[in-house]
């Protein structure tokens, strides 16, 4: 068999796989196949209004009105996937001019820096995803920068109700505006679930301002009980949608844990080790498995209280943290000042400890 060299800028196989984005970190979306749900483990969530509410890992909602939709991880999925993100409308709501209902993912600037947005050399990107809805019609979405002053609105059509369809959108890179390239919000990918005219524009071009959807779009929140499933979301460099970038589950989980971490120690399972600084507090070091995007700023203890090798833990207070570890006080009674104490999960195995502050 003879060997040789093929000189080409890009090669595409007969099944559409292109070499241009084949290697390395192809999909800039994390948890695009919706398999990681550290926060809720599949439970339904009703996003509060006025803030970014994270549900499945890396996916957040912004809703201008409360109680108009619920969301959860679903096992309804197209062939080749096992999960999707489900949104269900809770009412037949008529959006107001200033309303905005967004499902979105903020991509860290380090993971979009090579795209060169905001420069003359901005790369073309392609967004692909699988979607299924009880509604048909034209739906909208957008890509935005961190300052919300540059937006590209795209549209896609759902042709058949309750049927999985794959959509592809190719977007020329933005040569204007400021696009962060470090650990801030590099880019937002948005799927509109409803928006008023303030956040709508025509599809297909970059423009100044904050937009989320396309003029004339179908608003999911406008139909009580309407459903919207999405999975297989991929944003890649280049003008062709290639096959979904399946990463090992452990890799995908670790990528998500850079932004949020939830420990499930189980019954008497290890969490950290500390030194009692009084009879009521243990300064405890808990190592993070992944370097956080930025220093954690909060912790949540749920389920049952910790167990400890001595004393009786009852609570926890945030004290110090780095991107690699947190050092809270475990509060309780019966500690002996100066003694080393192992902190572990409670005996019923329901203790969880969440680390917040890494999300974008």
């Amino acid at each position, binding site marked *: 068999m003879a060997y040789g060299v093929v000189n080409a800028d890009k090669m595409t196989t007969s099944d559409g796989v292109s070499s241009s984005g084949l290697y390395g970190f192809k999909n800039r979306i994390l948890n695009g196949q919706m398999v990681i749900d550290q926060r809720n483990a599949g439970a339904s969530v009703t996003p509060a209004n006025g*803030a*970014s*509410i994270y549900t499945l890992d890396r996916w957040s909602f912004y809703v201008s009105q409360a109680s108009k939709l619920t969301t959860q991880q679903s096992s309804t999925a197209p062939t080749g996937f096992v999960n999707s993100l489900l949104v269900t409308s809770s009412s037949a709501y008529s959006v107001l001019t200033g309303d905005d209902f967004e499902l979105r993912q903020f991509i860290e600037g380090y993971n979009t820096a090579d795209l060169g947005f905001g420069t003359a050399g901005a790369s073309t990107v392609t967004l692909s995803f699988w979607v299924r809805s009880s509604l048909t019609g034209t739906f909208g979405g957008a890509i935005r920068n961190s300052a919300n002053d540059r937006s590209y609105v795209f549209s896609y059509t759902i042709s058949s109700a309750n049927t999985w369809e794959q959509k592809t959108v190719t977007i020329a890179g933005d040569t204007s505006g400021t696009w962060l390239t470090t650990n801030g919000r590099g880019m937002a990918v948005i799927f509109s679930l409803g928006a008023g005219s303030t956040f709508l524009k025509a599809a297909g071009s970059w423009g100044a301002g904050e937009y989320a959807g396309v003029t004339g779009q179908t608003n999911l929140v406008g139909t009580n009980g309407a459903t919207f499933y999405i999975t297989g979301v991929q944003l890649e460099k280049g003008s062709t949608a290639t096959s979904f970038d399946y990463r090992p589950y452990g890799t995908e989980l670790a990528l998500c844990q850079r932004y949020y971490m939830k420990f499930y120690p189980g019954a008497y399972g290890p969490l950290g080790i500390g030194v009692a600084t009084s009879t009521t507090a243990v300064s405890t070091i808990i190592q993070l498995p992944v370097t956080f995007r930025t220093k954690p*700023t*909060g*912790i*949540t*203890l*749920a*389920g049952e*209280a910790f167990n400890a090798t001595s004393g009786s833990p009852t*609570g*926890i*207070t*945030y*004290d*110090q943290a780095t991107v690699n570890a947190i050092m*809270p006080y475990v509060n309780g009674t019966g500690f002996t000042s100066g003694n080393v104490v192992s902190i572990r999960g409670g005996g019923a195995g329901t203790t969880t400890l969440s680390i*917040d*502050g890494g999300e974008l």
Partner: protein
Amino acid sequence: MNYKLYKRTGQSTPDAVVLTRDDGSMTSFMFDPQNSDYIAFLKWIEEGNVPTPAEEQ
């Protein structure tokens, strides 16, 4: 639900909060404008509520 202020190590004034919920879960967070729990705490304050003061150390 109860919010209680506290001073982290090395701080002379309160710079963190412990939220204890009715179900027994606890969230503890810094005064950080990016932290969603802190944002919710500020909203709670705006509604006229007053947190439990920090203990003297």
